């Protein structure tokens, strides 16, 4: 069957099998390997992308179901060569070690900041509660999101890497 969707602002059309999962469509058919393919069972959240503005687990969405809809992946975060504040936050605050969960974490926390520009720690932890990180213990991910929130609000005064909280 033929499917057409908008991915990171570009319309794409491909011939696919009905059973193809969105994560494989993005990675194998479009070459957008930023989206990671993890547990395959909608537990780990490494495959999180946006579908019509909401984060979803792309291992549990058929590519066909995304037809006619808008998908945004981690490749769609940077604008004109400039990284999104959330990406810079993860760099500044060591929000990753191995990086496998990072694309999914970036997509859910970007969505969080769009809805709640200054989330509490509890709200951040809730937003990433469907995703697994085995490196950071989540503490630096929380700090990365707080850095990005402050950066966007223009209230960031110290360099996060030196913060000890």
């Amino acid at each position, binding site marked *: 069957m033929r499917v057409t969707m908008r991915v990171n602002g570009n319309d794409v059309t491909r011939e696919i099998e*009905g059973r193809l999962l969105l994560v494989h469509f993005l990675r194998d058919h479009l070459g957008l390997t930023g989206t990671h393919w993890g547990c395959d069972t909608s537990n780990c959240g490494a495959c999180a992308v946006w579908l019509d503005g909401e*984060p979803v687990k792309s291992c*549990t969405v058929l590519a066909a*179901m995304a037809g006619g809809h808008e998908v945004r992946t981690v490749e769609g975060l940077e604008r004109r060569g400039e990284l999104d504040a959330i990406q810079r936050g993860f760099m500044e605050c060591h929000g990753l070690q191995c990086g496998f969960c990072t694309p999914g974490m970036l997509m859910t926390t970007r969505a969080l900041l769009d809805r709640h520009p200054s989330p509490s720690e509890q709200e951040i932890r809730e937003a990433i509660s469907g995703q697994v990180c085995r490196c950071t213990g989540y503490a630096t991910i929380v700090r990365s999101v707080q850095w990005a929130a402050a950066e966007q609000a223009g209230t960031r005064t110290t360099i996060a890497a030196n913060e000890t909280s």
Partner: protein
Amino acid sequence: MQVPAPFEYERATSVDHAIGLLSRRGSTARLIAGGHSLLPMMKLRLANFEYLIDINDLHRELGFIKVEPTLVRIGAMTRHRELLESDDLRRMFPIFNDAERVIADPLVRNRGTIGGALCQADPSEDLSAVCTTLDATCVIRGPDGERVVTMAEFYRGPYETAVGADEILIEIRIPVWPNGSSAFEKLGRRAGDWAVVSCGAAVWLDDGLITDARVGLAAVGPNTTGIPAVSLALQGRAPSEELYAEAGEIAARSCTPVTDQRGSAAYKRHLAAELTRRALRRAVARIRGEER
């Protein structure tokens, strides 16, 4: 790599269109809404269908929470997240907010629907306990029109419901009675997991006495279990710790848990009693304005 076996994909544009497709395809077809129960089962070959009929476009038609004087109507395509964020439900039936906060995780809740959750009929499914507690009815539409069934009639066993091969669950109706409230308690092994046991309670008071009370338990029987004996024991009596304990004992006696990887039958009975106590206590506190 886990992928479902091959199937043909079609997209329904209206409820009637979906029913038409189901009528043509028979039992080889299955509706797919959020897909977060069906696709994992198809990946594992626990479910196999030749046709999947995507009904996500029906969110326009079936994604709603409508408050009427005696009834709240929830469209079957209403997503978990919409249930969680509904101010109307939070005010009228806080049990929904309690339950939705502990159903899966935010990403799954962005996709999963109440209709899909009920039709999956997993014995451990939390919204089934919510709907049983609230004495909800289900509106099922097929080629011959609509019919309305109670939750007890809706469930036919694990993963089986009253929805026929050419039918679709379109709406859940919850009766509204004054001076009542509700609560939900769940114990899972880890965040976002299926319940070891979960329990809903709804209580209505008049002049300090319980006019009616309902308890619904998940994961302690082939389907979500309403406990009529609890309702009988509570009616006409004043809420008290002793009464909650009595209700808990009845709940523990009345359910039929089995020992599995989530816990022993004895432990689940203990939980049924304890969670029943907690849910009743919280529902009453909410009526009295002592708790949100």
